């Protein structure tokens, strides 16, 4: 178990690992599950990607009148098991965090584990800690708010 500063979410899918993997690289599918007014209060401006290692994506939406460009660079593309890309929002210095998606076939479907490492530079500091970041921040915030 890594102590990297990361958010981790898991999801089991009835669909095959290949279908789930391909959805992450197809702008049509990005518009179905990542961005759009059916997901949150936003309008899609454009969804563009260049799905090869070193290629970039730009997913632009408007929220509350402001345009937001979710952008990053593909680092690893290993269909259907592993996809790694940097992830950032234009106003926050872009490529600062890394998303790793691992997909394991299971029965007729698959299990997807997504890890969002919040900042690659934090990893070296996180090695000194035993617990995950979400827990550290959450516990401390709760403890300190209780104390106040």
């Amino acid at each position: 178990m890594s102590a990297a500063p990361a958010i981790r979410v898991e999801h089991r899918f009835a669909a095959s690992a290949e279908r789930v993997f391909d959805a992450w690289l197809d702008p049509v599918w990005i518009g179905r599950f990542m961005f759009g007014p059916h997901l949150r209060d936003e309008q899609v401006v454009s969804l563009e990607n260049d799905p090869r290692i070193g290629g970039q994506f730009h997913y632009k939406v408007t929220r509350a009148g402001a345009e937001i460009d979710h952008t990053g660079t593909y680092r690893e593309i290993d269909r259907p098991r592993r996809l790694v890309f940097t992830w950032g929002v234009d106003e926050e210095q872009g490529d600062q965090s890394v998303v790793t998606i691992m997909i394991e076939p299971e029965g007729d479907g698959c299990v997807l584990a997504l890890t969002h490492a919040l900042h690659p530079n934090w990893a070296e500091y996180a090695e000194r800690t035993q617990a995950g970041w979400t827990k550290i921040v959450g516990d401390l915030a709760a403890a300190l708010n209780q104390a106040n």
Partner: protein
Amino acid sequence: MKAVALDHTMLALADPTRRAILQRLGSGEARVTELAAPFAMSLNAVSKHIRVLERAELVQRRRAGREHILSLNPKPLDEAAAWIDEQRRFWTANLDALERALADYED
């Protein structure tokens, strides 16, 4: 939350001594010497930790005569927690939406 502020917060939290200092300050303000007492390290070493916490604006310093009194500012911690929650909600919502879309668009 700005990425730089988040960096400072997370860096400040990435050390057990600094987290212990924050927890101590959670029960009330303290002098630097009081904060240093429980730790088996020099006052100078503790001061370095405090400066990291000050840079992250987790700790505020005021002077009372010759004393430096430190107090906690939990706001950056709340902001970091909120930012992490927001990221988690974003990905969780997307994975739920992917499951629905896969069901809606059978090959």
